[in-house]
């Protein structure tokens, strides 16, 4: 027996080499370096609420298979050998699911491990957590738990490793799928502009597009044009956040503790700061499929893509789960075994029907996904809807483009309008119309509410879900929520068509304008100027943000000094930016009648004055500083009193010394440069008077 076993083993090894050519490449690379993958199971978003109140997003079914399966399938295809799943919300459910799945079996192509990160509220937090735990040893694949992708990964990986071997600073490769700007699979709310070097595919700039604000321009560092001859400014990618990262990435997250979002903060941050000297590359995929389910709109689109086999071989009839028995029929119809279909019912194209479902006479189902064990009554009409498991739909109901979650009951003759979400176990009475913008749930959390009989009918069960956080959050958030719901809701999309077309027109403008810049700004003088400008703008914005969000003083100071070093700016500019921001804040407080001049100055400067300690060092600096304040005050209402109180306040804090103030006032010619400057200083002599008398008193 012994020798025989050895023999078959040998055969198997040969088989691996000979038959699975596609497999051979990852296996070989495995020998050099095992590829780790980090799966972020949480999306840190609330777009799928109320569904995600009860189930984590990555376990929501897409074409009757949990989203996480698609991600794992992709990782298996990519030749990953070690998977770490970071769990946050609903961690117990995810852990249980993974423990019971085939991925934990010995036959799994990779080892799988779950890591709890219960406190993280963003990708950044999760990365910092991972860094702290020290789990990452080599380059790894960072994905979220909701991607669908069939891109063969060996080429991407080989390219990345080649770049890494050449240059240790190439810390990240983003995998981007080309698609037209209005492609259904692109998330409308999260499109972004990538500026890439045409030859090397190095990403030199990243800018998020905010659809609502009708952003008309982006600013590029002119330095970019010196370094790269051919730039492509592109807005036609599906960015599904599949990144190959080096271990530097989590470390950088730890260093820059304000980075939260992997693109908006991290990529943008790394690319705008020269100091770090890290580079990020893009790998553009033109052949295969890559997408991420990040909103209801993309849920709809990706479902359609899976059904129409863009994701081949990851299609329903691959039966990813062991107990699935889907079979393909012409017209992209997938049926599982054990379905009861009445003779007169019609299952039209692009439909998936799960096992144990019964469809009664006269019912028409088009372009929809029906889960397992559903009961669908007579003469029901279901169009592009997503109906999960154990749903009961009674006679004559109409369901259009909605999501009906497990265990829900839709009463006879009810109508679920496009865009509605009926969450777990909600019961809708007969003859009820559920509007397209309604999200119904039975999950209450800690609240205590009565059944919304208006929404679900007298015999129904469920509540209208209102996103509590929506009101608190800022515009951006609302924009995302609106557009994700809105786009999914096809009816209202038509109404808002015009707004979308203006966006596209803007984009076109932007593109052409940027092109012109690229030809013009090879002039180095121009580029230096704007470098300074951009520093001033950014530094000012940074301080303003710190003040508005009440950051820690140290953080604000650190941010400023990082910026200063990145842009190679002088302290003069730092001071100018800080003053502009703080005086701006003061005058805002005064103008909005919140506080009187004195109180406003004191409130701001007592809190933020210490910032100047790291900007003002000797007497010359102080004089320069005074001049800057004076000049800034000329632009403000009540400038003279702001100046007076500011000087007083800073003197009290020992940031300004008496000698410097006197020198500035009596000796500096710039002080009296123009009429404005003189006018704004009109209140100062009185204070100087007080100063000298006070001094005399203390002297005597």
């Amino acid at each position, binding site marked *: 027996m012994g020798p025989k076993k050895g023999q078959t083993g040998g055969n198997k090894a040969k088989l691996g080499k000979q038959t699975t050519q596609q497999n051979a490449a990852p296996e070989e690379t495995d020998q050099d370096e095992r590829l780790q993958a980090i799966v972020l199971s949480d999306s840190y978003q609330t777009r799928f609420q109320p569904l995600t109140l009860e189930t984590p997003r990555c376990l929501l079914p897409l074409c009757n298979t949990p989203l996480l399966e698609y991600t794992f399938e992709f990782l298996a295809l990519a030749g990953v050998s070690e998977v770490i799943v970071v769990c946050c919300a609903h961690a117990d459910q995810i852990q249980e699911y993974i423990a019971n799945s085939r991925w934990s079996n010995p036959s799994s192509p990779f080892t799988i491990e779950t890591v709890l990160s219960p406190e993280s509220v963003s990708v950044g937090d999760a990365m910092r957590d991972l860094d702290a735990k020290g789990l990452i040893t080599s380059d790894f694949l960072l994905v979220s738990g909701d991607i669908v992708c069939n891109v063969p990964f060996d080429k991407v990986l080989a390219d990345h490793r080649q770049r890494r071997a050449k240059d240790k600073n190439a810390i990240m490769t983003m995998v981007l799928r080309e698609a037209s700007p209005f492609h259904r699979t692109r998330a409308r709310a999260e499109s972004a502009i990538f500026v890439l070097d045409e030859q090397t595919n190095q990403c030199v700039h990243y800018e998020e597009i905010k659809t609502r604000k009708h952003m008309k321009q982006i600013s590029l560092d002119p330095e970019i044009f010196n370094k790269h001859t051919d730039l492509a400014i592109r807005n036609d990618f599906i960015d599904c956040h599949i990144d190959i990262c080096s271990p530097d990435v989590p470390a950088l997250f730890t260093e820059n503790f304000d980075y939260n979002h992997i693109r908006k903060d991290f990529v943008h941050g790394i690319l705008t700061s020269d100091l770090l000297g890290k580079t990020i590359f893009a790998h553009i995929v033109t052949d295969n499929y890559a997408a991420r389910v990040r909103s209801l709109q993309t849920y709809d689109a990706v479902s359609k893509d899976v059904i129409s*086999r863009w994701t081949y071989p990851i299609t329903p009839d691959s039966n990813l789960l062991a107990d699935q028995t889907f079979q393909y029929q012409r017209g992209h119809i997938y049926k599982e075994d054990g379905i009861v279909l009445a003779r007169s019912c019609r299952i039209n194209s692009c439909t998936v029907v799960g096992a144990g479902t019964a469809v009664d006479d006269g019912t028409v189902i088009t372009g929809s996904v029906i889960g397992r064990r559903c009961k669908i009554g007579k003469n029901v009409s279901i169009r592009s809807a997503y109906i999960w498991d154990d749903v009961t739909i009674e006679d004559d109901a109409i369901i259009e483009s909605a999501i009906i979650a497990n265990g829900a009951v839709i009463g006879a003759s009810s109508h679920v309008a496009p865009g509605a979400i009926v969450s777990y176990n909600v019961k809708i009475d007969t003859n009820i119309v559920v509007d397209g913008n309604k999200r119904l749930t039975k999950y209450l959390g800690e609240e205590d509410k009565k059944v919304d009989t208006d929404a679900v009918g007298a015999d129904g069960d469920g509540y209208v879900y209102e996103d509590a956080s929506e009101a608190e959050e800022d515009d951006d958030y609302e924009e995302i929520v609106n557009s994700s719901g809105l786009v999914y809701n096809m009816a209202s999309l038509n109404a808002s068509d015009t707004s979308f077309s203006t966006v596209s027109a803007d984009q076109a403008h932007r593109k052409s304008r940027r092109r012109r810049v690229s030809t013009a700004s090879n002039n180095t003088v121009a580029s230096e100027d704007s470098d300074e400008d951009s520093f001033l703008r950014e530094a000012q914005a940074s301080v303003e943000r710190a003040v508005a969000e009440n950051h820690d003083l140290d953080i604000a100071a650190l941010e400023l000094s990082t910026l200063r070093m990145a842009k190679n700016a002088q302290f003069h500019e730092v001071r100018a930016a800080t003053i502009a921001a703080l005086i701006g804040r003061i005058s805002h407080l005064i103008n909005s009648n919140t506080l009187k001049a004195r109180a406003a100055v004191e409130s701001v400067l007592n809190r933020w004055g210490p910032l100047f300690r790291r900007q003002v060092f000797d007497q010359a600096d102080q004089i320069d500083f005074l001049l800057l304040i004076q000049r800034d005050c000329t632009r403000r209402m009540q400038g003279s009193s702001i100046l007076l109180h500011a000087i007083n306040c800073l003197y009290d804090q020992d940031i300004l010394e008496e000698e410097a103030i006197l020198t500035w006032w009596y000796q500096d010619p710039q002080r009296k440069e123009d009429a404005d400057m003189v006018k704004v200083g009109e209140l100062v002599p009185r204070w100087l008077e007080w100063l000298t008398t006070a001094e005399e008193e203390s002297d005597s």
Partner: protein
Amino acid sequence: MLAAGAHISKEKDLNAHIEAFVAQIKRRQIQGSYNVALATSQLLLRVVSAARWTHVDQLVTQIKVLGKRLQSAQPRELACGNIIRRVLALIREESEDTNDSESGDGAINSPLITSMFSLLSTNDEYGPNRQSQSLCDGTGRSIKKDLKPYIIEGIQELIDELRSIDESIASMGVEMIHENETILTPTPNSRTVLKFLLRTAQKRKFTVLVVEVFPNDVEKTHEFALKLAEAGIETTVITDAMVYSIMGRVGKVILGTHAVLANGGLLASAGAAMICQCANVHRTPVVVCTGLYKLSPMYPFDIESLIEVGDTGKVLEFEDGSLVDKVNVVNPLYDYVPPESVDLCITNMGGYSPNFMYRLVLDHYRQEDTTL
């Protein structure tokens, strides 16, 4: 106890192996009928060498259950099922041989004459049977012990046959292709056809027209043509649309295939059916090169259920958002070519008319295994 533990761990190992195979086949990491056939036979070799049985029928049931599992992983990849049926036939044959010889000797007692006998009995009746067998001494075990090496040897032979199949088909090329003939081939992904042509080129001088079967095999077409050209064969790549105009000058159409059905019909690359029709109209002979492992005992009652539908992205570019949203694209990977369109099948057993395929099916498979 130790031995039992080792056995369990081995079984687990094997199970993991089977699961991995199923996953790979679903993921299309093992692709193409040859690769699938080879991998399946190697897996079966492992299974049989690890299997324990007191009665051959238990082994047959085990393999059948496994076969069903493997087959359902990718029901449209017929090669997997074919190999399983071949192995089943092999096991049955071996067991019958031993039974024949032993009953001839008259050396065994009644509960052991089982092969035919147990066909009529149900599974439940195995229980007492097996017990009595395990209780019974030497003679019962001798059958089992004798059988295993034979089966393993049989599977090894099958693997060897798979490996040498292209060679034996290629050697028939000289009889098929004559000097200065023009050959048209619409299946550039077929290794068998490639070897067939390359081998024949050593003796004959001929021209090959390679049809660029859009959309699934365009790249392979170019590789294929390159290999032929490197071997000194005059090669031209033509588009699918040109087939009709050029067919009049073609001497033979040589076809590779994905599977051959019991009625002699083929599942070949999409587009092959039309080219065969065209050849029929021009009275151009259509010759199919196929290994026996592609021969399936299935009849094409439901053609659609046999044809795999592939990646939509090959037909329509996914980038084109406006179209993707509005059209339904179907990209079948195979065509069903009816047996009337085919003139000759060259197998590793020699050339046969498609009408004769049912006979080969009967020779190689057992009818009771047709449905796994």
